[in-house]
């Protein structure tokens, strides 16, 4: 990906995050209004969160300026380099795929832990994270996972008395 195109997509993502925060602030303000704002002499339960939501909305709006300026600046350059989009995108895409894979592993780990208990979930989860983080030998991943799970079980369940 060319530099201008890269900064264009970065600015677009930055703007999306700022807009997301503004959206979250609007939802919080709406809910806070519902809790009751009260007045200065008797602040309601929604008064303080309402003021904070307005603050978040304004600061996220200010944070939106920089990516919008970048977007305007990068627009012309992106149009000129529109043909060279595919080059070099693999690094960012790989990171996103790995991050998505890690989140999936963590969610499945939590679900399995809920249904089948800690030991089964931890052995599977640690093996998967080990392999995802660069471990090449499955055997080593299994051995490490079993030892770590046993160690944690001993520490949390036997010594600290946590029901697992």
């Amino acid at each position, binding site marked *: 990906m060319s530099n201008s195109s890269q900064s264009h997509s970065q600015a677009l993502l930055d703007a999306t995050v700022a807009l997301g925060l503004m959206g979250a602030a609007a939802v919080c303000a709406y809910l806070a209004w519902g809790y009751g704002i009260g007045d200065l002499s008797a*602040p*309601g339960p929604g008064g303080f969160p309402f003021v*904070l*939501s307005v603050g978040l909305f304004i600061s996220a709006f200010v944070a939106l300026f920089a990516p919008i300026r970048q977007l305007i600046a990068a627009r012309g350059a992106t149009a000129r380099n529109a043909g060279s989009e595919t080059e070099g995108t693999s690094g960012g895409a790989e990171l996103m795929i790995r991050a998505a894979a890690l989140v999936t592993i963590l969610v499945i780990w*939590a679900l399995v*832990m809920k249904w089948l208990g800690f030991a089964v979930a931890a052995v599977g989860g640690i093996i998967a994270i080990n392999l995802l*983080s660069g471990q090449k030998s499955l055997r080593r991943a299994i051995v490490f996972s079993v030892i770590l799970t046993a160690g*944690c079980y001993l520490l949390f369940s036997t010594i*600290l008395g946590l029901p697992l």
Partner: protein
Amino acid sequence: METILHGFLIASGPSQLLFCFFGVLLGTLVGTLPGIGAAATISIILPLTFGLDGLTAIIMLSGIFYGAQYGSSTAAILLNIPGTSTAAVTCLDGYPMAKKGLAGQALLITTMASFFGGSIAIILLMGVSPMLAKLALQFGSSEYFAVMLLGLVAAFTLNADNVSRAVAMTFFGLILGTFGMELTTGVRRYTFGFPEMTEGISILVLTMGLFGISELLQNVSRRDTPAPLIPSYRLRDMLPDRAERRRIYGPCLRGTAIGSLIGALPGAGPTIAAFLSYSVEQKISRTPARFGKGAVEGVAAPEAANNAAVQAAFIPTLSLGIPGDSVMAILLAAMTLHGIIPGSNFIATQPDFFWGLIASFWIGNLMLLVLNVPFIGMWVQVTRIPYHYLAGIVAVLIFLGVYSVRSSFFDVFLVILIGVVGWGLARHRYPSAPLILGFVLGPLIEEHYRRVMLISRGDLSALWESSISLSFFVASLLLSTLTIWRLIGAIKRDRVRR
């Protein structure tokens, strides 16, 4: 004097010594390893301390905090890998010194400077905290509101590059702090229909998500290249010569002064102290061109500064109950979880805890001196541990740590969600520290604000009526004005450059 001696007696108990050693050992370990910070480690280890008494737990957790500062310099000097953000400054001159064959001297200088900076700041902590606590006895709700506001303003104004983002994160943290049941009216705020949210978000879930899961996601694509083998060093080879010794006295003193001042300010932290002291040394040097090429001053000053800042950060936390940075916010939460409430009455009502903790800092710093100088070779070997093993350990400890707090699977899913959101925000340069500070201070600020408004019957000027609160408001206003001025200047310079 009697009180500190009594503190030493308390801190010299077998379990206190043992857990102090564990803390500084673990701190040095995570400081040496890049990718796992002190904040994440303290959050992950915190549930394991529930079986300990409060003082022993905090001695251990504090040991992790200041131990990480010592450990981070080893990998920074020998491998040019900063284990913590503060060590990035040490890399600038430490690694060039190592390349010149002066690694031994650089390591000894950093250890000595760290010990010096830490020790002076502990003396300051011993002197200033009781005075500040005495002053804080005059504080009412308006004064607490004003000083907490100053802490939040300082937190985002010191993030000079991303002020609007830091402000947004502060507000975000403050809003997250309001989640759960409002104690005065019993109204459930932002629970989204989940009964588990009635108690709000646990600080542990928030910090483990923001620092633990977020760091796992950040490092998921990391591929380690094996660290080079480092020769072992004898103490005799590490001693700096007379000329070098003469050159480090001044930087150590100045670094300690800057670190102590910055550390004691709410909102500032050791990273700012390290960068500031480095730039001061460079500015006052007669030969600034040597900096970045292996100047001993460039190693000694930031190391003294960051260790002084770490110890001085305990001043506002212990005497006012107001954390200086995100790690202190986690430590404050840890104290609360152990039933210890720092504040103006803390030193008077719990002198054993206060002086025992201070004495443990001395003991911990001495342990670090012993751990760091003769075992440098061992710490270097630690950097060779492949990341895929660490990722598994971090993940399982986060899950178990979060689950252990309330035996709740809801918290396990929540920590994943917070981690993903935190990682997304960090990727777009939204800092986590103001969020944590906002989260911790939010409920307190609301409580004090509500109290002032109820007593004054809605008169806003009651917030700045007293001279103490007025001075805090003026300081907040000055800081904000200064930041806006700097921002306008930066925008103008940017336009001229274009």
